[in-house]
């Protein structure tokens, strides 16, 4: 096994959902989707965004798009116009998720 960043396996986009953000994580291949579906759990995402996401994390699987969708509740400091944060809309959370490292088989290529 080797450790790689999610950026090697998937691409992502994020945006706001009230006071939370949504992060879509999309694998480049079917094999990549199996890996992210297994490794990128609610618990791991919550821990990864520990300083950003103060609420719960919801997770949805969308196999037809080889994608996972995460809702990071309470992660925008009030959200929309009420937030004082630089990233009041969670636009950067997708790129942040791609920094996560997971274990993949030694011979894995995206």
């Amino acid at each position, binding site marked *: 096994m080797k450790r790689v960043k999610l950026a090697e396996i998937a691409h992502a986009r994020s945006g706001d959902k009230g006071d939370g953000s949504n992060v879509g994580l999309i694998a480049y291949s079917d094999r990549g989707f199996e890996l992210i579906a297994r490794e990128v759990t609610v618990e791991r995402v919550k821990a990864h965004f520990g300083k950003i996401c103060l609420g719960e994390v919801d997770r949805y699987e969308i196999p037809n798009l080889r994608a996972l969708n995460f809702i990071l509740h309470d992660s925008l400091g009030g959200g929309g116009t009420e937030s004082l944060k630089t990233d009041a809309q969670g636009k950067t959370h997708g790129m942040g998720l*791609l920094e996560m490292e997971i274990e993949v088989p030694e011979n894995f290529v995206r």
Partner: protein
Amino acid sequence: MTKTIRIGNGQGFWGDSIDAPIRLLRGGPIDYITMDYLAEVTMSIMQRQKLKNAERGYAHDFVAFIDKVLPELVERNVKVIANAGGVNPEACQRALMKVAEKHGIEGLKVAIVTGDDILHRLEEFRGKGEALANMDTGEGLFDAEREILSANVYMPTHGIVEALDQGAQIVVTGRSTDPGLVLAPLIHEFGWDWQDWDKLALGTVAGHILECGAQCTGGNFTNWREVPGMDDIGYPIVEASDNGEFVVTKHERQGGLVTVDTVSEQLLYEMGDPQNYITPDCVADFSTIQLEDLGDDRVRVFGVKGKPSTDFLKVSISYLNGYKAVGQLTVSGPEAYDKAVKCAEILWKRLEHAGYTYHEPMTEYLGVGVCHEGIVENLAAPEVILRVGVKDPDRAKVDRFGKEIAPLVTSGPPGVTGFAGGRPKAAEIVAYWPALLRKELIDVHVKVEEV
């Protein structure tokens, strides 16, 4: 012969490129141009404009766009659908008619779709026992005194279709859904049934892909190095025949990239439960969407399934919720981060000495890893921007905070600069209140005018 129509979106949000719709019009074949002008709090700004001047309160940029291109639109019979009406679609229609007269155009039909503005009906709904409870917190709208600035319903798409059926070339709405701007011409052209949930869902997915403009043609794309010609990025086009599928593309000679990857990213943008994407018209199931790369910036979308619409409409209410101010200083090295931390400590202590404390004051150190706090950090950054902010119901308290930033340049650690633009002043916080309302309480009105 199979009829194929091309619908492009030339405006993804209030403040998007003013040249994009013109490039969409002139860059190649197009039948419909849709334009989205309304962010969640845009309506409150427009209500204020209308209060000052009864002929304002809509998107002026839209009228300027029409003025620039109207003869061309008429000559090529390109239809335009925009939610540019804001809180004053009637005034927007009058302005558009004047533009048409100025250009000496005859026979042009301009329609407005209204009924979404319920600011004047809130008391009526209160009397009927409607709670308009906040969808996020559950709190009732009328449970506390609030200074409500605007209240609009996300309208079903029927009104736009009716306007097109009546021959309107320009359709202006108040608050409509973003996908509805694209769904409407598909229903109008292909005569889809209002109970044909799969087709309504297909058109809704088309609208969702287009609604953020260049975000599906290579903008905001993870693999940005792969995107050619971003300076000339093409805005998205949906090409559809009545065969249960459509193709996402862009004008051939413009920049950008349309692939399964760029389209997938946009499909997931602002997504909640993928199996229940709720609009006033249907519930689309995004777990049924199939994508296929056709090459040459063309992606086929098919297999979309839908479910019946719900009995409710979403309401977007904005209200005044106190004041805020944000200011910043640039702190140079050596030890930029440590000095910035010291500056913040001094700032908050000085305010406390003066008798001012704030609920959850904000302190950010831009440059060391604010966006990805706790994920990627670099405390050794050669310079750091200290960004601080407060909010409070008391305007004077917020203004007082703004006066405490500049003194740090001369009375704090060395090498602090970048205080420009004067003291930050308290700005109103216009907050957003999402709620649901029973569908039968709302009527759609369509008014077509002809020059």
